[in-house]
């Protein structure tokens, strides 16, 4: 599961313009620490952004090692701690990690599917000082149908969402949309309303890891998006002041890339279950990475001195058309991982950008998705689910 920093507009009491975490300060600090505690997960979402070979990772960091990471990042100015995975609830030391992180002054965010949680657990997490829970309805389309039909499989999830609220947390729900479920967003939103959710994020699938592998089956069609967008806006109006709805357009349908990670090595630091430090959770797959590990180096060394974190910092690494583009401070040339996956060179312009000479790759991917969607159901490629068996088979070990 992934998460991104939200934006904060310039606000009255904030210091001269420097509001929010999305500011490129002269001094970069790892303000956002994403701790992917484990790759273990009871679910098998085909759009998971974990690496395809996750089953290869055997040794997770110990409690002590995680706490050292937290402490070092905190000293460097980290305030937000995201606890994700895999499913973080599968870590038996989760409560201890949260307790200690909270004592260090972190704002702690748990990103969970809710599987493995019960009302007592929520109360325990609250007691430990957890600040925020995001329940992701990370489910295959079949499960989603169950969810909307309100069958037993999802009763539990719904109870969890309610327990979260009963413990004094805002209820933050996240739905990852793709071709197979995006037509149901009105039903999803109705469900959120009936649960009295405070925030609903209609996130878009990001095409890394498993999602990239399943891209032909997951890319939504243009008419689907137009419909979804209209519905999202209608609900936004109706729910104004009640439930906040965030709707994100998939970047494959945009003309400009997203400002990935608010700039490489700028505010985000991801630590994977085995202790590898990454500037973004998908960066492991880039060629030429040295993949520093917190077991060998301090966070300070990794953040300030490592090849990986310096590689795409600033603007000097850029090629044309980004290099001479006047929009580069807005989007930093887009996503390095996407540039690599689609063009073979991570220093290229993100092909989502219409100025990119490789933009046709995006259009071709959309076309391919469309062809796939128009095939009779029997002939469509099956979704590949994220589980250890498929991981081993595909990565060949």
């Amino acid at each position, binding site marked *: 599961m992934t*998460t*991104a*920093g*939200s*934006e*904060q*507009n310039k*606000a*009255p*009491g*904030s*210091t*001269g313009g*420097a*509001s*929010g*975490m999305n500011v490129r300060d002269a001094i970069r*600090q790892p*303000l*956002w620490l994403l701790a992917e505690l484990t790759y273990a997960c009871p679910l098998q979402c085909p759009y998971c952004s974990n690496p395809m070979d996750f089953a290869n990772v055997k040794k997770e960091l110990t409690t002590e090692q995680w706490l050292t990471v937290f402490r070092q990042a905190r*000293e*460097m*100015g980290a*305030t*937000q701690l*995201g606890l994700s995975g895999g499913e973080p609830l599968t870590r038996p030391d989760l409560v201890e990690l949260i307790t200690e992180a909270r004592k260090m*002054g972190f*704002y702690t*965010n748990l990103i969970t599917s809710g599987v493995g949680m019960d009302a007592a657990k929520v109360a325990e997490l609250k007691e430990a000082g957890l*600040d*925020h829970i*995001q329940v992701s309805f990370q489910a295959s389309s079949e499960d989603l149908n169950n969810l909307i039909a309100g069958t037993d499989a999802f009763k539990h999830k719904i109870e969890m969402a309610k327990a979260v609220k009963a413990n*004094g*947390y*805002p209820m*933050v729900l996240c739905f990852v949309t793709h071709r197979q479920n995006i037509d149901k967003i009105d039903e999803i939103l109705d469900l959120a309303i009936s649960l009295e959710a*405070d925030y609903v994020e209609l996130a878009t699938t990001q095409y890394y890891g498993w999602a990239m592998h399943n891209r032909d089956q997951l890319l939504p069609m243009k008419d689907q998006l137009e419909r979804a967008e209209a519905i999202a806006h209608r609900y936004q109006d109706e729910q104004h002041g009640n439930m906040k709805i965030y709707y994100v357009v998939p970047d494959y349908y945009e003309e400009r890339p997203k400002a990935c990670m608010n700039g490489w090595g700028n505010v985000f630091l991801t630590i994977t279950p085995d202790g590898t430090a990454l500037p973004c959770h998908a960066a492991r797959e880039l060629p030429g990475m040295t993949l520093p590990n917190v077991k060998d180096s301090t966070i300070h060394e990794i953040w300030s001195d490592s090849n990986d974190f310096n590689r795409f910092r600033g603007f000097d690494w850029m090629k044309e058309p980004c290099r001479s583009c006047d929009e580069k401070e807005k989007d930093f040339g887009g996503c390095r991982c996407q540039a690599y996956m689609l063009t073979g060179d991570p220093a290229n312009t993100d092909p989502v950008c219409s100025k990119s000479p490789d933009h046709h790759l995006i259009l071709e991917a959309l076309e391919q998705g469309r062809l796939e969607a128009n095939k009779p159901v029997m002939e469509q490629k099956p979704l590949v689910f994220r589980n250890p068996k498929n991981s081993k088979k595909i990565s060949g070990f």
Partner: protein
Amino acid sequence: MTESVFSADSVPMLALGYRFQWEPAQDCFVLLYPEGMVKLNPAAAEILKRIEQKKQTVAELIAELKVAFDGADLDDDVYQFLEEAHDNSWIRAE
């Protein structure tokens, strides 16, 4: 600005999920909330500190600030800040 939310006897509280704290690395007070942070200027910090410390009315809050800042005439500034902070969902009124 739309109609005002705060009057002398309303009680401002931090919004659900917001935390006020000193950040040594930023050398200022900040508000933390899900997945974000706002750095506060000193005036905003003085107000939010008092909101966080105890439940009190706006009138009491202003009285306290006046004692702390030599009787300065700050009513309008406080009200303006409260309304804007409310617009940003940092605080709520009880």
